[in-house]
């Protein structure tokens, strides 16, 4: 399993879904999980890896596992996948325009990473597109409401698209506690309000799911199974770079 869907029937989204946010907010894990879940609806699903910034821990590294689930991964191919070249595959532009495809865009972190959406703003503007801001309160520039709002505005400006929803995904990797989830919501909720949108999803480590499933005051839950781990830690991904 790539990621568990729990409440995803309650999660509404448009055909093209782009996730933006700080480095380490959990965008890639969410994209992998959401796309895998979306594929179960039988609609052709595609992830475009638009992380042109960092050559490590990108969704393209999970490409083989996704292919087994029927999700197409669009990323620079072959040796180019390992290049530190900011390559945007040509097919991305046509994929965004195709009505028969569910498209998830995995974008690099911070306003800098969101800038790549600017180069696609013409096709994205014509498509039905959600821009979800993923917020991890434990990341720099996201720890207070004011700073998170400022970061959100920088990101929206770089993407040249409005933010249409917030995903609260506060975590400390394997050390996340139930209190941390609530601590994150304390910023995500006022942030969504200030942006005129809703908190559309709440990321919860799979182990804490039973605890939160009992509560009725929460946005739809998504269980996070960490996948973007080196293979020696149990993830799908080999060490960044090569496979045998």
């Amino acid at each position, binding site marked *: 399993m790539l990621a568990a869907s729990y409440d995803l029937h309650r999660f509404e989204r448009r055909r093209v879904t782009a996730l933006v946010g700080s480095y380490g907010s959990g965008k890639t894990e969410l994209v992998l999980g959401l796309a895998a879940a979306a594929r179960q609806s039988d609609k052709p699903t595609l992830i475009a890896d638009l992380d*042109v*910034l960092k050559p490590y821990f990108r969704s393209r590294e999970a490409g083989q596992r996704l292919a087994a689930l029927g999700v197409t991964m669009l990323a*620079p191919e072959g040796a*180019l996948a390992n*290049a*530190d*070249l*900011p*390559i*945007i595959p*040509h097919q*991305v*532009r046509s994929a965004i325009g195709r009505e028969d495809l569910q498209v998830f865009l995995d974008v690099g972190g911070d306003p*800098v990473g969101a*800038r*790549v*959406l*600017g*180069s*696609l*703003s*013409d*096709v994205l503007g014509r498509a039905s597109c959600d821009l979800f801001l993923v917020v991890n309160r434990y990341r720099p520039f996201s720890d207070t409401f004011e700073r998170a709002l400022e970061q959100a505005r920088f990101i929206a400006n*770089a993407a*040249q698209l409005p933010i249409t929803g917030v995903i609260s995904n506060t975590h400390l990797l394997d050390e996340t506690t139930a209190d941390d989830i609530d601590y994150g919501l304390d910023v995500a909720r006022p942030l969504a309000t200030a942006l005129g949108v809703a908190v559309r999803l709440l990321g919860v480590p799979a182990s804490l799911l039973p605890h939160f499933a009992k509560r009725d005051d929460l946005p739809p839950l998504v269980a996070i199974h960490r996948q973007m781990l080196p293979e020696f830690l149990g993830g799908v991904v080999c060490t960044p770079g090569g496979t045998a």
Partner: protein
Amino acid sequence: MTETLAFGRTPLLTHNYMHYCPGCTHGVAHRLVAEVIDEMGIQDRTIGVSPVGCAVLAYNYIDVDFIEAAHGRAPAAATGLRRTLPPDRYIFAYQGDGDLASIGMAEIVHAANRGEKLTIIFVNNAIYGMTGGQMAPTTLPGMKTTTSPGGRDVAQTGHPIRVCELLDTLVAPVFIARGSLSSAKNTIKAKKLLRQAFDLQHQGFTFVELLSTCPTGWGLSPTDSLAWLDRNMLPFFPTKTFREPGAMPEHTAAYHPDLKVRD
């Protein structure tokens, strides 16, 4: 009814799929270089030098012998080629603005100053494309990049370097020109500059700067990128031919070729 092929693949471009982003003008520049080599019929006598940067894989696309240079060192590596190969060879190096105007500034200035018989193709898009859009020596004042988030502050980081103008102070070069790839019309002009440079290469150092776009690094759509280039880069980087054979800088008049320090 007969079909006429209006536009075909350039013979000297390989069948390899180009990795450049949509709207990036590297592909255009490659095609122009390939067309010039093809039209001159010099494929068997041409050796290219690919740089470090987005064009590091240029050797995958243009069907001539190639060597790959370290970052900034293409003019030195090309010099090594020129000084060891038979004189009928054509040698070109293809460099970006970080490569040529920053880390490789010494190499380009001295290759030009020695009058190395080379053609240097300088692709200027005002940022470091490969590493993610950092400030380059050619970044415009006030232009936002990942390492000048508040816009390039000239008081802190200096002004953009105009490489053609800088090289035009040297005596040795025989051809220095700046073109632009911002439109079909400009691209046709740019190709003429490349052809002139290759034609003059055996007379001395030739240099063609091509103003280019980086939609990904700039965060603009391909069409917006072209408009941005015209609006913002052209005023600072005017397209013109700076040097042609026979036109030497004024200060050469005061130069005594017979001067000896001692016998």
